[in-house]
């Protein structure tokens, strides 16, 4: 997130996957600015909070089994933005909390009208993994060697052997198993973002 510019004002928002969402939630530039100011007086910080709130809303909708959590998160934010004149006068407390209630309402509307496509395990021939493996190779090359060794060793072996290996790793690194879990999770999240960007560029 650091180093990223504050979000641009979204001039037009559409939800092709969710035709039932109201398209009249037209957000003006003034309202958007007011929204950011409500999140944080510092526009850069506000931008980070905006992204952070969006990620959490996506998590909520994904955990409710929604197949388009990003669109639903954006709809939730739009509805909050539109109500900013009323909210900033009357609401007290962490702005993040306010989004939860709106998200629930959005979900109920979605749940009434959705048709959820069931997950179909996609065919996974070896050749289909090549772009991902290539991107992973590139991304692993971009992280420090220590981190690279940790994450690769963490996922080596099968089941019971892997568990023993991880306990051994924790002892060698003189750290608690939970701390190792957190470390690996952070490296993994970094790699996943990197691989996602790599695939989006078609660089794999």
């Amino acid at each position: 997130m650091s180093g990223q510019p504050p979000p641009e004002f979204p001039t037009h928002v559409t939800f092709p996957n969710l035709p039932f969402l109201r398209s009249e939630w037209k957000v003006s530039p003034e309202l958007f600015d007011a929204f950011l100011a409500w999140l944080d007086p510092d526009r850069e910080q506000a931008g980070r909070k905006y992204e952070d709130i969006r990620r959490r809303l996506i998590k909520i909708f994904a955990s409710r089994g929604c197949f388009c959590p990003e669109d639903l998160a954006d709809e939730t934010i739009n509805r909050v933005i539109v109500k900013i004149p009323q909210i900033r006068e009357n609401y007290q407390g962490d702005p993040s909390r306010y989004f939860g209630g709106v998200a629930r309402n959005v979900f109920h509307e979605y749940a009434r009208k959705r048709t959820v496509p069931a997950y179909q395990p996609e065919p996974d021939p070896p050749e289909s993994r090549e772009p991902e493996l290539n991107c992973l190779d590139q991304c692993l090359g971009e992280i420090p060697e220590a981190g690279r060794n940790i994450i690769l060793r963490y996922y080596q072996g099968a089941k019971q052997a892997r568990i023993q290996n991880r306990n051994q790793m924790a002892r060698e690194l003189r750290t608690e198993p939970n701390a190792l879990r957190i470390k690996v999770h952070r490296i993994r999240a970094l790699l996943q973002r990197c691989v996602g960007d790599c695939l989006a560029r078609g660089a794999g």
Partner: protein
Amino acid sequence: MKLDAGSETLIRRYLLAAVTEDEREQIETRLMVDDDFFQQINLVEDELVDEYLDQVLSPGDRLRFEDIFLCAPERQHKLRFSKALRIYATNTAQAKASENRPEKAAWWQPILALLNPPRPVLAYSLATAVLSIAVGGPWTFIRISGLGNQIAALQAQQQNRDARESDLRSQYQEQRAKTDRIAAQLRKEKERWSALQATGGGRLTGARIPMVDTLSMLLSSGVTRDAQASQRLEIPKGATLVALKLDLPENRFKTYKAVLLSEGQEILSRSGLKASDSGSQILIRLEVPASDLRSGDYEIRLFGAGQNEFDSYVLQVIRK
């Protein structure tokens, strides 16, 4: 980031949509404001994906994972990424292992190493054990084989004895049944004869001899002349007809032919005879005029229709 151990089970249930609505609201409210909690959810998500790939989720959890957890495209990407990471990690480990693998030892070297262990006591013990097995093994095998053969032979003998005994038992029962039939018939005839005598008993001593029209006699085949006592027919004066009932072990033919012989000479012959089956006996009735029978030995040969083989019945006739 701090991990709240107590929350992990709840987070798992939340991610698999196995929570109540109240629990869900509490979690979502906390998720929006608590950074560590949000990160813990992400971590548990990763590990849930790993468990799915390891196929260690319970059937119910697996179903929820596929139906609910994997609805969001972001999580499907996470699944693909996890698979790729595992493959990459495994390939890396295999590449490293093949680099470090020592030269493959010759096949005899492990045996050589065994014979030259670091401790002599171990070597002597091993040598003794090997020698014992080498010497004792074949001898034991031969002995066991020999015993096995003996056992098989004894079992075969026993089986033969059992079969023979069964045969003999059957023959004995068959013969006994035949004898019983003959004895019963004889008793009947005697009773009948006694009854007949009783009706004319006052005239036995020079008195009028009762007129017996038909005499009947049961004959069995295979009775030797030496045992003819039970097949002796006394024909009184006045008897006109003798009905000889030939006992058959089984009724194999539609009709039969009977030939009466005396000293090898044919006295009479009858064809087209049919057997009668009363359930306990199969009989062919041969009627012979009493006048044809003199005192002496007779043979009846019974042929199946169109057959050359015959059953032989012997009879001793005494004319009174």
